[in-house]
């Protein structure tokens, strides 16, 4: 293979890529005003730019701002159903991740109220990923959890539990292998899907099973146990992620930060799951937690 220099370092790649993504951001921002087909590329560019920004400058505010922009772009596409926008389940899932990670309340609420019955509603004309039932179930479950939190109701969370169970059941290794020619990537993505379902299920159970104040002591014990399971699931996912990144020689900028982990930990906190386990992981420098930076998990400082 020609053209590859041993002196070409990761920093070179990050720098050059950041410059390119910034150029594309400018292009997509302009064209998305008139072309709904530019909304997804805009969101994708926001995501990629945020990863390179973090890798090079560690600026949490810039990263959140980009996530927020990406979330709003996708929500615009889902909400207005403009021609040219593909309302696919993977994009709705991404929109939820971005809106939660960026603490974009309006975007989060709008997505939450797309549930239930996404398949016949917000995702009706999906083209990409339309052959994957697992993604549709996951999108449904995720939106229901969001709705449960937005409305402070338990019933959507109970429905989410069923959707997420279906999402895990339909997680078909054969589908991933056909869609992702690199077996390593297919394996990682299948496991990531499973991990996201497991983490969301924990949150959904927490909301659905939360007891009244009179049963507070028992409730705290259950919450602690759920949090422990949640933490272990995050541990396993991050180990798998590290394995994938080590084994595959290509770059994976979107895995510089594990966006689903950021979002789901924030969601868990919103559902009043204890998250002290996170602090312990950081203190012990457990493998993989550099991809869940604390600065991005903490709520941004409120403006005066």
């Amino acid at each position: 293979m020609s053209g590859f220099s041993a002196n070409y370092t990761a920093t070179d790649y990050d720098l050059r890529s950041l410059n390119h993504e910034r150029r594309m951001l400018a292009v997509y921002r302009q064209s998305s005003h008139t072309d709904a087909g530019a909304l997804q590329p805009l969101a994708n560019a926001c995501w990629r730019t945020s990863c390179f920004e973090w890798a090079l400058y560690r600026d949490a505010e810039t990263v959140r701002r980009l996530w927020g922009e990406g979330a709003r772009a996708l929500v615009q596409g889902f909400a207005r159903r403009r021609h040219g926008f593909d309302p696919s389940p993977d994009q709705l899932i991404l929109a939820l991740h971005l809106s939660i990670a960026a603490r974009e309340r309006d975007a989060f609420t709008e997505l939450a109220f797309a549930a239930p019955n996404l398949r016949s509603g917000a995702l009706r004309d999906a083209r990409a990923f339309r052959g994957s039932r697992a993604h549709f179930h996951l999108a449904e479950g995720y939106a229901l959890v969001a709705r449960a939190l937005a409305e402070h109701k338990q019933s959507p969370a109970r429905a989410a539990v069923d959707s997420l169970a279906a999402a895990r059941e339909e997680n078909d290794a054969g589908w991933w292998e056909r869609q992702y020619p690199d077996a390593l990537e297919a394996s990682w993505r299948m496991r990531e899907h499973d991990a996201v379902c497991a983490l969301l299920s924990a949150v959904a159970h927490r909301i659905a099973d939360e007891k009244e104040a009179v049963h507070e002591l028992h409730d705290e014990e259950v919450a602690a146990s759920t949090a422990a399971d949640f933490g272990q699931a995050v541990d396993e996912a991050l180990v798998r992620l590290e394995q994938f990144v080590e084994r595959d020689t290509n770059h994976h900028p979107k895995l510089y930060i594990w966006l689903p982990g950021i979002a789901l930990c924030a969601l868990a906190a919103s559902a009043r799951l204890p998250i002290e386990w996170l602090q312990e992981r950081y203190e012990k420098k457990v493998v993989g937690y550099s991809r869940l930076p604390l600065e991005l998990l903490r709520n941004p400082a409120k403006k005066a």
Partner: protein
Amino acid sequence: MDDLSVEASNAVRHLTNLPQSTVETLKNLGQNIQPGPANTQGTNPQNQVGQQGENSQTQVNQPGQQVGDSHPGNAFGHHKPGRQQLEIRNQGQQFQFRLNPRTDGNSPFADGGTRGHHYGNWNHHGHSESHGSHGTYGLNSAIFSYLRGDSDGSALRPQVRYALDVVSDTMGSEWANNLTSKNGERIVRLIDHAVEQAPRSFEHTLHQANRANGNGHRESFSIEPEVQRLVENLLSAAQLGKHFDKLDKAGGNFARRAEATVAQFLFGDKSMVGERVQLSAAELLRDLRSGAFRPPGEVFNPFPLTGRARVASEMMELMRTFDAIERAIRQLDGRHNGAQQGGLDNGLKGRLTGGAVAAFEELASLFPGSPGRAGRNEIPKLIGSLGGMLTDANGRQFVAADGTALKLDQLLWLSTAGGLLKGTFNGEMFPVRLSPQLIYGFDAVYSVIGFDGRTLNPPHFAAVQAQINGSELDWVFGQAPLTEGWMRALIERLKDSVLADHNMLGEMLEEALAAGRFHAALVSGSVEEGEAVAGSFKVTRLLPSVTGEPAFNYA
């Protein structure tokens, strides 16, 4: 590898208060761990636990002699089977395990007796010198035993063990557990051959690389390119084996015969022929999945075959294709006065002149190949014969935004040639064995100029994809083929490639796509017995406008 039983795992944790991570490490050593009485008379204990987990108070003692510790084969902490001991002290408590490998009658290490200690040095082929190259304890048995978890893999080179670990982990424990003697032998032979083809120079251990993991840590652990390629080959081989398992159920005898044929060319008696045309498990798998081995006549059959009949017809076409490949190679060898591989290559190189495209056309036309590859190799011929001018069924040409007619100019990228072309022929460049990323990426990318030959600024590009024998175009990354989402997904793969040249091409293509300067066309035709059927190739679709009619025949 079987999981540690829940009962045993809980027993270990309860009795030793070991953190789960340590138990997992012990489990991954491929041994059953059963609590047993203390026994200080272990033989060759060589107990190394790679990770201590979070509780650093756990210690592992290593009494007794350790055999082969100086060999890099021990770098992964694998310890030898046989009656081993692992003494663990934790917070003043002493708890000793006796490790008994899971065994079956076929394992060469069944009794853990003296056989289990003949590891010493091994030769360049990864075979234990004590046991010879293909004896009872030869490489294929060692691979099978290791994959099944019946041995620690000490007879294998560490890079091979690493690669097998990755394969087993990626394919899942169910795959490894389902390796019976029947399909296991087939899989292992495929893997065995891939390992044999790996460079002989696996002498240095896995090393640090300066590829960062994106978190600012520049000393991340990475693997050698040769090991990476071995992993790719093994994974492709394992996936091909899985596919034939499915075909076996549908196609019965035909599928088995076809599989035997594939096996011959990939790793058996005819593997030299297969290597000459760079047959690969990954390309074969793609062609099998997409139906590229469908006989050409089937495309126009108003009553297409289904089910078992369809599988049988595809398997027969596969066997005919391989026969044709073998005939062509042997004829060429005969014409160049010798069956020596070097003679053929030298003769070809002496004849080749001109740029990469001309040389490629000549070389590609000499050999039949898998249908997908044969079809993709037709793209430059078709484009060349049309003078780069592509039209749809209504005679409309590629046009720029200002209405200027365009034509395809320089071939920038050809997947069957390994990707980016630099304009000069490099005899070592192709035929090449392709990675899955290349196989499922763009087939060809051209630069585009004005119909009068003038250069366009900014530049335009065109992707040309091939569809063979009415095969299903691949959905990849969740995207329908030839859609903008599909193009964006492939562009992103280029941008994230380890190769800087690919990154730059990807960036250029994304900018072009966003500005309406990236076109796409589909070339479809028939391939029979590994060769393109004359007159069958045509452009049938252009993007962004989709036409259903054939546009132009290539004669």
